[in-house]
């Protein structure tokens, strides 16, 4: 518990996490507002209210990566390991604090987007959260942000440099996952298993996508069910984090 408080003090006594959280919320909700305000194709579906969630996800992942890379950048990681030499417990505490915070931002972004759509969309007859699927579309944003933060934290701890970690995360999520689909024959099959593609299926996946225009939003492909997709994304995040723990434990601080 003490270490959770330590990581909380560390995170909130600098400014960049606040900026990242504001930006994640602002981007997601702001873009959703534009979408909602311009929705002319009949009633706005719940999916339409959350498909901007990926913008906030990237920002939240940058925040999580920064939480560990700045410690390396400024040498405070050495002070941390001096204070708690087993190294694993402060890293786990950091992951707990950052993941929980990211999930809260995700919930705020999901419900904020949905609420704003309710206010701005012309026809809200489809926006009510009536089924389990509807709730997953909106509340799921919190879960995906949390898992994404854990993944980014692992990458940050492995790479140790802000620029490196942020480029890896953004290039992978924004470029690599789409480019992979262009590889002849096997591209589509690989893409189905790419972590961010799978994660967006958890949010967007729906047996009935009738309300959405065909080319809107991220692809919802993959062999797994929506919740299976989430499990897969979490498994990748946990694996990355555990690998980073092993490396951090062995490496000279």
């Amino acid at each position, binding site marked *: 518990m*003490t*270490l959770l*408080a*330590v990581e909380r*003090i*560390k995170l909130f*006594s*600098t*400014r*960049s996490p606040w900026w990242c959280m504001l930006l994640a919320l602002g981007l997601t909700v702001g873009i959703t507002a534009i979408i909602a305000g311009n929705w002319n194709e009949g009633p706005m579906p719940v999916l339409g209210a959350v498909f901007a969630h990926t913008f906030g996800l990237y920002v939240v992942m940058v925040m999580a990566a920064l939480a560990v890379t*700045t*410690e390396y950048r*400024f*040498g*405070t990681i*050495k*002070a*941390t*390991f*001096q*204070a*708690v*030499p*087993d190294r694993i417990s*402060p890293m786990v505490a950091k992951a707990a604090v950052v993941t929980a915070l990211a999930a809260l931002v995700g919930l705020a972004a999901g419900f904020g987007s949905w609420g704003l759509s309710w206010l701005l969309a012309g026809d809200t007859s489809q926006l009510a959260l009536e089924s389990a699927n509807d709730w997953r579309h909106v509340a799921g944003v919190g879960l995906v942000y949390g898992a994404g933060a854990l993944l980014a934290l692992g990458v940050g701890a492995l790479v140790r440099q802000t620029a490196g970690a942020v480029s890896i995360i953004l290039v992978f999520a924004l470029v690599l996952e789409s480019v992979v689909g262009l590889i002849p024959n096997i591209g589509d099959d690989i893409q189905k298993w790419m972590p961010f593609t799978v994660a967006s299926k958890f949010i967007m996946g729906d047996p009935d996508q009738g309300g959405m225009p065909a080319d809107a939003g991220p692809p919802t492909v993959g062999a797994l069910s929506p919740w299976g997709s989430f499990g897969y994304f979490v498994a990748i995040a946990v694996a990355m984090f555990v690998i980073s723990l092993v490396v951090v434990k*062995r490496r*000279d*601080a």
Partner: protein
Amino acid sequence: MIEAIGLTKRYGNTVAVDDLSFTVEPGRVTGFLGPNGAGKSTTMRMILGLDRPSAGKVLIDGKPYAKLDRPLRTVGALLDAKWVHPNRSARAHLQWLAKSNGIPQRRVDEVLDVVGLTKVAKRRAGGFSLGMSQRLGIAGALLGDPKVLLFDEPVNGLDPEGILWIRRFMQGLAAEGRTVLVSSHLLSEMALTAQDLVVIGRGKLISQSTTTEFVERSTENTVRVRSPHADKLGAMLVDKGFTVREDGEGVLIVSGATSDQVGEVAAGGGLVLHELSPQRGSLEEAFMQLTGDSVEYHAETGK
């Protein structure tokens, strides 16, 4: 007490620390002396468990650092004053450190007061001058009221006032019975601060002794004599088993003899002396001589 036993650190083919063994006793300031690149910082990081030794071990009161419970209460260290997030306030920096080792928050204000940073405690540490950063680092080292303290080059870049403050401060800590290890590449500074010296060069132990012993042993005491009968006097001194070398017209430098002995030899031969003066080698020269072969990066001198 700190005990290093066969401590070794290799990076690829480079050996940064080579089979280093020494002890640091409580109640004294021990200087950890060596040229830049001798392996002082690497050794200190190994003492704190930050770097893993390739071989050997280092114990603090009989335990490796990682086995200490709430280590900041046993060992305080200032390895680099810049290990602070620049946008975090001095107080917030000390608060998280204190929290991590169950140190009460009022101790934060105490140590801020000890190092004289109370007034700037809420300012961001990134705006601190070097001297202030150094004081913040010392405050962090003192948080847990530790028995063992490590300081890596604490006076680097400080003004004379700051240097004097740190020197007195470390001596005060040792007088309270604590173990204090201070690294430096300046022998003259250590001669004023430390009672014991551990001297290393290229990662190897060169000597461990008291500072007085080290200075006496390593500075060559010679006697300079000027005499119109220099040749004759030289021959007589060599007969007595002293080492003599000429240093210009009619001047001899005698090693291994006191000025009394040289005077007596001259009187015995009835020789006139124009000058008889004991010479003391400088500390820096002695240090250079000792570590000369072990400096990693030589600068081309002269020619």
